[in-house]
């Protein structure tokens, strides 16, 4: 088996009061890892992952809206019932991220679609998205 280490740190200061929190997840049961790097896709694209990963980390940076959906059903990855509209939005100065520890039995999809829409209709889509998908064996 392989391993994964994933940590997130939030550090904030409001009215001079500084606080920091770090959370870390580790596992030694990794069986498969995939990284997908996307840049300047014109409108949308789909990716067949074969089966749903246990961990899905998405980082976006650029002038784009992105929506991550169930490839087969056009429903959001997070197992909702209403596809609705764009989940998250990024602009030229802000990264965006979703980090999800998924539960495969409850998210029965085989792939994902990443949809990027231009912020300015006449301008180029400069958005970029990186996806890290990790599969783990049952413990």
């Amino acid at each position: 088996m392989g391993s994964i280490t994933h940590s997130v740190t939030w550090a904030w200061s409001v009215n001079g009061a500084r606080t920091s929190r770090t959370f870390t997840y580790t596992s030694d049961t990794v069986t498969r890892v995939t990284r997908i790097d996307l840049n300047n896709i014109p409108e949308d694209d789909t990716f067949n992952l074969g089966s749903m990963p246990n961990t899905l980390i998405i980082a976006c940076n650029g002038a784009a809206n992105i929506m991550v959906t169930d490839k087969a059903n056009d429903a959001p990855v997070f197992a909702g019932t209403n596809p609705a509209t764009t989940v998250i939005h990024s602009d030229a100065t802000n990264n965006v991220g979703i980090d999800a520890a998924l539960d495969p039995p409850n998210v029965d999809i085989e792939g994902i679609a990443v949809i990027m829409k231009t912020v300015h209709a006449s301008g180029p889509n400069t958005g970029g998205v990186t996806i890290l998908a990790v599969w783990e064996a049952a413990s």
Partner: protein
Amino acid sequence: MRGTLNISHSASAETDDNETHSLTHAATFAVNYVSESDHNVTTLADTFPLDAVNNGSIAAILLVNLGDDNALVSFQNSGFLHMVIPPGRFVEVHRFSTEMKAAFAGFAIAAENTSTTVRAIVAWTA
């Protein structure tokens, strides 16, 4: 603006056959309010509405399952973003759409089998 929030992530994973990938990303927001609270829940779902501090300006949400049972979480009024957080794991979303920010009203959380504790850290933009 009353303050700032810095978020950083790193992840590194590898398999036995040396397939290795990593990912890092970071974000900085101007914020005026950050809340942190722990929610103890059983299999009967509890709802946790959020204070309407600068309503419609949610910047980021981090949920951490501190207990021993799967946490079932729904973002109320969002239309979706229902998720399962296994013990020891966390979920984060930041930079919501305008529609999402306008509709979001709080969380509904339940334990799948027994009970658990979910820590919620929420930041509002300035």
